[in-house]
């Protein structure tokens, strides 16, 4: 090899090393922003959710935003903001995106060349001061040529896998937003229910008070008094039970929003949020939910990846082919240089098992997509029926049931004024009005949860294999632990 050629080869090696080491650092914030703005777009979220696209620089900034949010009454929106900002699992997943990206990028990085240097010394005449000594230096650089050739393909695969990871993260983010929305609805319901039970209890307290005084005055029997005491006790126990349920709902929110210590002393705006009506036919709903479903998209993306891997794998009959240059210098001699080639002989392992594995993965993913679409269709059918049914019921309550209860109450007051009913009966009427309100609140909560699930589905979310969309069934997260093909 002539000196010029040698020099060029040496520089190439050095530049490659520099490039490789330079690529080791990169930022994943841009990908995170992608994920968040994708979620926002998918939810067709209004401007009041633009916090989704912001990304605080450090923990201090996060804490000051949290502090500010907690100064005011919490709303559905601010609860979502806190969750996106502070939900521990979500934060971990955000960080995991960095890890995943690094891992995936690693696969696309050019392989490092093998550098081998050795120096050998002669030790003959070691104990003789004037004996002649000599040294021999040998170095070689080699690189796996097949690895190098497959890099552009691998880079494509890696980019695809980063995209898949982002889809899964978006899915998780949407899932959490849905979770926290339903947790807010549920907390509001439990709180309202508690207030109603407390009001009902006030009524039975008043009735007991009256009964005690009537009894004292000799106007009612021991039996009548005991009946009133029983009602009072039942209502008191109901309040106690509901206090715990409210606490459970509150703690669920604390967990979702990542709050602890004094941060959990928040107050929430007591009215249910208003939501836009979703006016889609069942088939429109199913079409767009399937079209936008992130899990189906991720799975089909994966199929492409496997297919690419599969064809690469088939093409590579020889698993490795190493090519290198070496140079040797011995004292007192001219340096010598040469090339080396090393490869595996595919006698036993010609990669057939990996090829088979990839074909199986492709099959598996295709079947999973089918399973997801079947489940999703069925669940969306139910969800659509649930949502429209609840909306009808809600309208009926608003237009008919509640006004009639109000009327019942005001007419009863008139009958009380005319002395046609007594205070006990009047308080019972109040109780029935409160109970109707309680039914209404429950229907409204279920309706809001169904709306939230619908929006979740329309944004591309998925409710897992077995679960119904709504109610207290936990919607499962994406299959994060799924075999990613490596």
């Amino acid at each position, binding site marked *: 090899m002539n000196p010029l050629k040698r020099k060029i080869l040496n520089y190439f090696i050095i530049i490659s090393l520099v490039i490789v080491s330079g690529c080791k650092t990169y930022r994943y914030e841009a990908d995170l922003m992608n994920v968040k703005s994708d979620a926002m777009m998918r939810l067709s979220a209004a401007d009041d959710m633009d916090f989704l696209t912001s990304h605080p620089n450090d923990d201090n900034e996060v804490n000051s935003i949290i502090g500010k949010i907690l100064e005011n009454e919490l709303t559905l929106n601010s609860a979502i903001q806190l969750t996106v900002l502070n939900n521990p699992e979500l934060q971990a997943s955000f960080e995991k995106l960095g890890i995943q990206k690094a891992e995936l990028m690693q696969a696309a990085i050019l392989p490092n060349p093998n550098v081998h240097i050795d120096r050998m010394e002669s030790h003959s005449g070691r104990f003789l001061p004037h004996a002649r000594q000599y040294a021999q230096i040998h170095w070689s650089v080699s690189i796996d040529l097949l690895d190098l050739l497959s890099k552009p393909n691998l880079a494509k695969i890696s980019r695809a896998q980063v995209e898949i990871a982002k889809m899964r993260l978006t899915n998780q983010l949407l899932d959490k937003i849905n979770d926290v929305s339903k947790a807010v609805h549920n907390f509001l319901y439990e709180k309202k229910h508690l207030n109603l039970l407390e009001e009902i209890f006030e*009524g039975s307290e*008043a009735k007991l008070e009256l009964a005690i005084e009537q009894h004292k005055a000799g106007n009612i029997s021991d039996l009548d008094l005991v009946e009133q005491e029983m009602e009072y006790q039942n209502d008191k126990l109901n309040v106690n039970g509901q206090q715990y349920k409210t606490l459970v709902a509150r703690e669920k929110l604390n967990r979702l929003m990542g709050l602890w210590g004094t941060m959990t002393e928040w107050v929430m705006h007591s009215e249910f949020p208003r939501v836009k009506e979703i006016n889609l036919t069942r088939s429109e709903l199913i079409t767009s939910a399937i079209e936008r479903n992130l899990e189906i998209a991720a799975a089909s993306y994966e199929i492409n990846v496997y297919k690419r891997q599969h064809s690469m794998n088939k093409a590579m009959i020889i698993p490795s082919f190493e090519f290198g240059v070496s140079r040797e210098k011995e004292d007192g001699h001219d340096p010598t240089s040469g090339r080396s080639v090393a490869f595996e002989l595919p006698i036993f392992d010609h990669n057939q098992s990996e090829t088979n594995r990839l074909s199986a993965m492709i099959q598996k993913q295709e079947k999973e997509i089918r399973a997801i679409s079947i489940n999703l269709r069925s669940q969306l059918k139910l969800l659509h029926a649930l949502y429209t049914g609840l909306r009808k019921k809600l309208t009926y309550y608003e237009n008919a049931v509640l006004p009639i209860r109000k009327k019942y109450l005001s007419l009863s007051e008139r*009958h009380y004024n005319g002395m046609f009913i007594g205070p006990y009966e009047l308080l019972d009427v109040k109780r029935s009005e409160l109970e109707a309100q309680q039914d209404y609140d429950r229907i409204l909560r279920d309706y809001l949860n169904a709306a939230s699930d619908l929006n979740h589905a329309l944004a591309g979310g998925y409710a897992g294999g077995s679960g119904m969309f709504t109610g207290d069934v936990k919607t499962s997260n994406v299959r994060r632990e799924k075999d990613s093909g490596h």
Partner: protein
Amino acid sequence: MKHKSTLLLIKIVLVLIFFTLNSLGTSNPSYTPVITPDGSTLPYKMVDGVKVFHLIAERVKREFAPGFFVDCWGYNGQTPGPTIEAVEGDRVRILVTNKLPEHTTIHWHGLFLPNGMDGVGGLTQRYIDPGETYLYEFDLVQHGTFMYHPHADEAVQMALGMEGFFVIHPKTPPYKVDHDYAVFLHMWQIPPGTSKPNPNAMFDFNYFSFNSRVYPGTAPVLARENSLIRVRFANLSMESHPIHIHGVSFKVTATEGGDIPESAQRPTTTVNVPPGTVKTIEFVPEYSGDWPFHCHKAHHAMNAMEHNLPNMIGVNQTNADKKIQKLFPNYMSMGTNGMGDMQDHSEHMPGPKNTPPMMMGKGPFANISMGGMFTVLKVRKELTPDSASTWYDHPPGTVSRKVDIEEDGK
């Protein structure tokens, strides 16, 4: 406002009664025509020496008290139906047209007549179907106070107000009264907030009426000092009514069965009028004033009252009030010290629609707090058109007054 216009209406009616009284009194010297307060007398035509009357059985909307309208059944637009007035020896022909949705008949309660004219559906005649007119014709062979009412689906038709007086004056009255009043006693179950009497009721009636009016819708009864007053009470309700009049002593002079011999008449201040009977009383009021005239069953002198209310007499409701006011900000407890405050309460706390408060009436000194079978016998030295609408002017020193027991109680 309602109150004012009612007073005006009462005034006009009384002025009319007053003049009718005077004019009729002069036109027929043989008897003093009957006054049916809040009602009327049925006109007749003479046809070939027969007095021909026409009764129309029909639905009637009756204002029991100012603003309180009741969907009744009656005759000729009224309940009680117009009073039929005739003289012993008359031959009467009464045409009865049925404009009700169901069949009816008319029974002439207490009259002696051919059996086929007795008006008992199925037993003595065919029913008068809707749209049909039947004729009753008979001679009046007795005198006294009688009633007419359906003898067909009685429980419904009488409960809804179908009844009326049939007064037969004697051919030659031994004496003449100055004022002759007829008051039909009735009771109704009209649930608060409704307008239709419930004919299914056997107990728990909540309105008690004089001529299908409840106080303060009842007209006052006017009397001149030292005049001879007759009042005929008839009762077709489910209970008896002991009618008590303040300021006078009276005698029961007749029933629907005939005159009571003078020797059997005893003085009293209360006459019990059982169902199906007539009691005629006569008295000479000697003392001017505004004297209550009412049923002595306390609950019958009240308007709609619920009887199953919890008993709050003597119950300290202070703490309960505070608790209930959290749920009902306008809540006011009632009944701790009695129901005396009820009238004030009802004036600023609206009750059910079409339902007069339990206690009503404004007197010259305070609330009168009555209802139902209650009116005022107004005895005056001379009757004037104003007598009905003005309060008695008490001579100085004749009204009970508050005193300081230390100073004045000796």
